[in-house]
């Protein structure tokens, strides 16, 4: 039993680590457009986002019970090794996409990881493919379009209505509105994504019999999941903030407000209906719609293409990595240790590479795209005091 409880502790810590990467990967969702339009200063934006992510974790546990009881068949014999492997794959994929400044879905990385590890560890019958299609894949494909369309319509209307007003007053008004709309996204994000970690931890505890089947997450799980995601959010995924805020389109305050409102509405409506969709894809979709609906009607399609490829790749890639990790972790303690070592060294390596071209609060609004060059390029002078990019 001692071996198992040690493993469970490792899984819980890894789950919280995933939650942390989820936080900084997704800071951009709420903060990117607010920072890009100047509605909020970068540091202020991430602080508000962090606080509201934490608060959001307490709003609901509906999605938490969907994840732990839905995608993976708990009764088929899912055990902590599998969950550990799933998290390892999800964390590595999250870090890789962050390094490249691409807003991929943390949720899909997690789902992919779970699916891959379960197929290897339990077999095909461990995964409820019906649930995967109805609750993940279909909403994932539909939600960016819905958010994009809503943001597009809202942007058109916002410009039409305020056309006769004073330009400066309009900009100021929408900037104020953005503070609220971006806050709402953070809250919704906390509700949605912190619940996924709660679901994972709960699933682990259920798998070792510490909790009965179908149990709700205990309070300490809710608190620690909320804290991990808030801390990650506060670190700020500046590379992704730059791509989303400055890379996709030139976003003005009315567009920022429209895209954030669309994203917040889609996320809240879906989580009300119990669909665990990707906040990232919804927010990106909203920004794309707002970019197209704006006065210029422009979008940088090359980045859009890269994002969409990454979205499609996220689930299978995480599944593949996690499947491999599960294969190792199933071999016994040495396998688990090996996966742990690979996870830590892989994460460390990616962090080191990111240092070559740091993006932080100070240079987040520069338009230079994040490209990890093989050679050290110092086109962005960064004072040593501001190397807080994460």
């Amino acid at each position, binding site marked *: 039993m001692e071996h198992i409880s040690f493993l469970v502790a490792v899984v819980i810590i890894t789950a919280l680590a995933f939650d942390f990467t989820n936080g900084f990967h997704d800071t951009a969702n709420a903060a990117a457009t607010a920072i890009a339009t100047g509605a909020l200063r970068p540091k202020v934006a991430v602080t508000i986002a962090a606080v509201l992510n934490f608060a959001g974790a307490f*709003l*609901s*546990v*509906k999605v938490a019970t969907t994840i732990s009881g839905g995608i993976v068949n708990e009764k088929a014999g899912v055990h902590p090794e599998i969950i550990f492997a799933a998290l390892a794959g999800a964390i590595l994929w999250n870090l890789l996409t962050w390094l490249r400044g691409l807003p991929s879905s943390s949720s899909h990385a997690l789902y992919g990881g779970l699916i891959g590890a379960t197929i290897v560890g339990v077999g095909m019958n461990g995964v409820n493919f*019906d649930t995967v*299609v*109805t609750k993940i894949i*279909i*909403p994932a494909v*539909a939600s960016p379009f*819905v*958010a994009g*369309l*809503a*943001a597009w*319509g*809202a*942007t058109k*209307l*916002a410009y039409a*209505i*305020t056309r*006769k*007003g*004073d330009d400066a*007053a*309009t900009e100021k*008004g*929408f900037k104020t*509105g953005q503070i*609220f709309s971006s806050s*709402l996204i953070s*809250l*919704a994000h906390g*509700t949605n994504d912190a619940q996924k970690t709660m679901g994972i931890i709960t699933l682990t505890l259920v798998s070792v019999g510490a909790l009965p089947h179908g149990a709700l997450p205990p309070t300490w799980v809710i608190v620690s999941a909320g804290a991990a995601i808030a801390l990650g959010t506060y670190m700020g995924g500046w590379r992704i903030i730059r791509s989303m805020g400055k890379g996709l389109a030139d976003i003005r305050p*009315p567009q920022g*407000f*429209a895209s954030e*409102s*669309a994203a917040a*509405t*889609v996320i*809240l*409506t*879906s*989580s*009300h*209906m119990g*669909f665990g969709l990707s906040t990232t894809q919804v927010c990106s979709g909203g920004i794309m719609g707002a970019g197209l609906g704006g006065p210029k009607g422009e979008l940088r399609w090359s980045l859009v293409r890269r994002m969409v490829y990454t979205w499609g790749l996220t689930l299978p890639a995480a599944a593949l990595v996690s499947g491999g990790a599960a294969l190792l972790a199933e071999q016994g303690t040495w396998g688990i240790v090996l996966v742990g070592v690979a996870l830590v060294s892989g994460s460390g390596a990616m962090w080191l590479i990111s240092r070559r071209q740091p993006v932080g609060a100070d240079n987040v609004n520069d338009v230079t795209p994040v490209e990890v060059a093989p050679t050290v390029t110092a086109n962005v002078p960064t004072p040593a005091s501001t190397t807080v990019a994460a």
Partner: protein
Amino acid sequence: MHIKWNALAQTAGFSFGITVAVVAVFALGILALSRREASLSAAREGSGAPAAGGAKLALAGAYVCFAACAATVGYGLMLIAGK
């Protein structure tokens, strides 16, 4: 496999409707505020009481718009927190 097209369509429809409505009402509020500024400066330039009255009306309109937006957000949060 049972796909809940109804639930999906509902989610999509609601999301679109609510977004467009909230943003439109918010934009109207901003327009009202900007009208108020215009009326106020007209009043300062001496066109007198009617302009000042217009400013008050515009401000009231803006408040109604922003309150409607806030109420929608509040209702949405209530639905989520009620679970």
